[in-house]
């Protein structure tokens, strides 16, 4: 038992020295996830924010002005005034505005007589996502204004059933609060796979693995000596991204740190295992990097449910999402950040992560040979 430990110790010491002397591994573990998180965290948002909106008021009276003021008072829109619908159209075509709100000359009269809604809304269907967002938020502004107006005048509200939305878990309905935890999973998938795949590819490139193979070190020891140090580094990177999420993006954290640590460890093992598996095919760093991005980052981005809802995917693709480790981690993270320790979410997903970690690490172990072919 002493001999294998001595060999492993030698390999671990070597790995540690390399990490200290060649900062590329540290950059992958800390810099890369932090950068990606910041870029995506600020870039990817599903909330409209100061969207330029053309406003055409054909007969500017007090009622119309009050609605326009309501529109401008929200953080979602920046009204741009036009006198005619034609002028607004031109601005719309030139993409200077993302939508048009059109209050016709009979706006106030119709509102008084029928008590409801004669405003025209034109949105650009090419960007369907933004269009739907603008539409939804406009409706919300409209409903709020109507309700306020009814209250003011002591009238019964215009709608027979008043819908009062109550959003649970993310009460501010800030998309960032639920996107950032998901992003952590995506970013750490790439980081974990790159860490192991690149460092082993580097050993292939430099011919050092070939020399190690003709020593007493077993293939299990060689793999373990890669897994352990990069697990530690990866956990460090995980802490860095979590701290960023809470401090920089102000995402609330409602679960327990213990559960978070456990789930992160399971997930990281799966990601590192994927990296080990990649390294058994890719023998130079460039190819290893390419494969890692294609097989880990892209599927995680699209198929993890972090932004695209898995429930609305066709069944075949939905099936495919089950082999994306990030999917389970996204679910756990979103629950931990927004809701707390919801065991009915955490346990099955943690189990799935554990299975994936075992499968990837097992496959990497079986696929590795002390041979070059």
């Amino acid at each position, binding site marked *: 038992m002493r001999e294998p430990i001595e060999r492993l110790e*030698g390999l671990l010491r*070597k790995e540690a020295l390399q990490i200290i002397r060649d900062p590329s591994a540290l950059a992958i573990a800390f810099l890369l996830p932090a950068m990606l998180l910041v870029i995506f965290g600020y870039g990817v948002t599903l909330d409209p924010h100061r969207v330029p909106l053309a406003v055409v008021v054909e007969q500017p009276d007090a009622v119309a002005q009050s609605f326009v003021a309501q529109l401008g008072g929200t953080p979602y829109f920046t009204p741009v005034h036009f006198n005619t619908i034609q002028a607004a159209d031109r601005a719309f075509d030139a993409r200077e505005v993302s939508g048009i709100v059109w209050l016709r000359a009979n706006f106030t009269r119709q509102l008084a007589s029928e008590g409801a809604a004669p405003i025209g809304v034109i949105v650009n269907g090419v960007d369907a996502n933004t269009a739907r967002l603008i539409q939804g938020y406009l409706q919300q502004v409209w409903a709020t204004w109507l309700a306020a107006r009814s209250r003011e005048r002591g009238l019964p509200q215009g709608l027979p059933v008043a819908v009062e939305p109550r959003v649970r878990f993310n009460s501010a309905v800030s998309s960032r609060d639920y996107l950032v935890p998901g992003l952590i999973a995506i970013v750490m998938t790439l980081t974990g796979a790159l860490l192991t795949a690149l460092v082993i590819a580097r050993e292939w490139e430099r*011919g050092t693995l070939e*020399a*190690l193979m003709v020593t007493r*070190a077993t293939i299990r020891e060689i793999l373990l000596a890669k897994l352990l140090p990069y697990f530690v580094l990866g956990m460090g990177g995980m802490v860095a991204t979590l701290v960023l999420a809470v401090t920089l993006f102000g995402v609330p954290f409602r679960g327990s740190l213990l559960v978070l640590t456990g789930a992160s460890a399971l997930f990281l093992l799966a990601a590192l295992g994927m990296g080990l598996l990649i390294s058994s095919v890719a023998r130079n760093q460039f190819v290893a990097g390419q494969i890692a991005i294609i097989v880990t980052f892209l599927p995680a981005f699209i198929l993890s449910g972090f932004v695209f809802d898995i429930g609305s995917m066709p069944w075949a693709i939905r099936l495919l999402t089950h082999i994306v480790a990030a999917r389970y981690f996204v679910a756990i993270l979103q629950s931990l950040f927004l809701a707390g320790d919801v065991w009915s979410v955490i346990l099955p997903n943690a189990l799935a992560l554990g299975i994936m970690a075992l499968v990837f690490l097992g496959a990497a172990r079986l696929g590795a040979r002390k041979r070059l072919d």
Partner: protein
Amino acid sequence: MPAESELPPALRLEGVSHAFTSRGRTAAALDGITARAERGAVTGVIGPDGAGKTTLMRLAAGLLQLRSGRIEVLGIDVARNPDDARSRIGYMPQRFGLYEDLTVRENLDLYAKVQNVPRAGREARDGELLHMTGLAPFLSRLAGRLSGGMKQKLGLACTLVRVPEVLLLDEPTVGVDPVSRRELWEIVDHLVRTERMAVVLSTSYLDEAERCRSVLLLHEGRLVGATDPASFAAQVSGRSFHVSAAGTGKRQLQERLARTPGVVDATIQGAFVRVVTESGGQLSAAELSPQATPLTIVPVPPRFEDSFVALLKSSSPATASPGQAIARGETPEENGSRGTPSPPETTGSAGNEPVIFADRLTRRFGSFIAVDAVSFAVRRGEIFGLLGANGAGKSTTFRMLCGLLPPSDGTLRVAGYDLRRAAASARGRIGYMAQKFSLYGDLSVLENLRFFASAYRLLEPHRGARIAWALEEFGLGPHADAVSRELPLGFKQRLALACALMHEPEILFLDEPTSGVDPLARREFWRRINALAESGVTVLVTTHFMEEAEYCDRLAVLAQGKVLAAGDPESLKARARTAERPQPTMEDAFIALLEAASRPRAA
């Protein structure tokens, strides 16, 4: 205890074949090899690149799966018990297997730990290894900062931390300077002598064969000879001569001798032409020299290479003698369709002006001086060599000469152009053949030629004529549609030269042109280069290869970015002449220069 002869040999191969498959094509790397390497001796695995040396070494180390045949190390079946076999093997791969961001000590510690070297005795062993390799003063230096020769020795020390019974060294001497090469051989000899270690060493340098107890000669995956080097060389004893002729240039003489019936081999060796005759063939001045030029013929002891070439020649059909079309007079000057104006500086200078002129040429990378005030001048039609080990500054000098890298300091003129100002104009007059095969591997031979013709902006009908010339002159016609990647090494090299000559350059740059190719292809290549030089093309060649240096008219010996000496091969060799070494080789000369250069620093 049984006598050594009754024990199983260090390495035994029986009917070993190996093939690599890529993209559905199968290429045989080894073909039915049956051979053995004895205990307590050095066995050389010798052959050109692509002969199957590395495949053989990796199979012996259990790094490739054996598909047919049987390999035993000390009687252990490698395919069945790879771990058992490996535990008794020390193996140094081509790139030495060092961790460059670890220090010398840390590398040694790592290998000691993974090899479970017992702590007791570790210190003594380390001390011995460090003494043997001369690495003691560099213990805390990063391996990446060591010179090529020191890396090689550290790589060797790492494989020796646990004393192996069989030591496999895969091309350990490639690209290292001759001093380190000699030191490595001294270490190997020492190991064999004191520890009774069996060493199996692969190399493409034929002169190293003479240092082995026995050699396995590989050629295109087949074993063409398994013998002891002395008796192998003796097969041509009495058939090797140095020939020289007063009043005849060595290249003309060589060309004539090479075409003489009964001559197996004619190569330039300094001022002489070394000739090997057919068995029973006597070399007579009258026979060789119908024009009655007075020839001096001196018998010389046979070399290993003489015998190897004779063997290869007898087994392969005679090749059409190259270089004739060039020699016939298709010289750049006489070809009227060329039409490029002469550079202004050279007009009227009657060719006395050097074609390549470097004065105190310097290149710095940060604080590192790669090329340090290098000066030389090359005349028209001259073959000039830059001789040095890896890292001596050859490639950096070369890149500056090609206009690919601006000099930090000094003057550099090529074909009359100042490279600082008119690099592009100068490049049009330069042909460049890179060390690595730098053509498009996916294109066919013809497509590569067409591409280079258009890249040099050759116009029809001249363009078609040049392509036809290339196919004819280099014997590439039958391979015109072959995918370049799959050509044999010798043909790749021919194609690369053809592409470099497409625009009839007046200057040809060759970067280690024949490193690793088999001796026949090397001879053929140099006959072409000689013919080009005879027709007025100026040739500049970088090499770490002593044999290529012999082909040069003059050469500059580089070490650590500086020119140690310059002159013709004979005068360089003459400097190393001592009482005990009346006939120094180029390598002796190089070593003497390196030692003289390092002495003041050591003192």
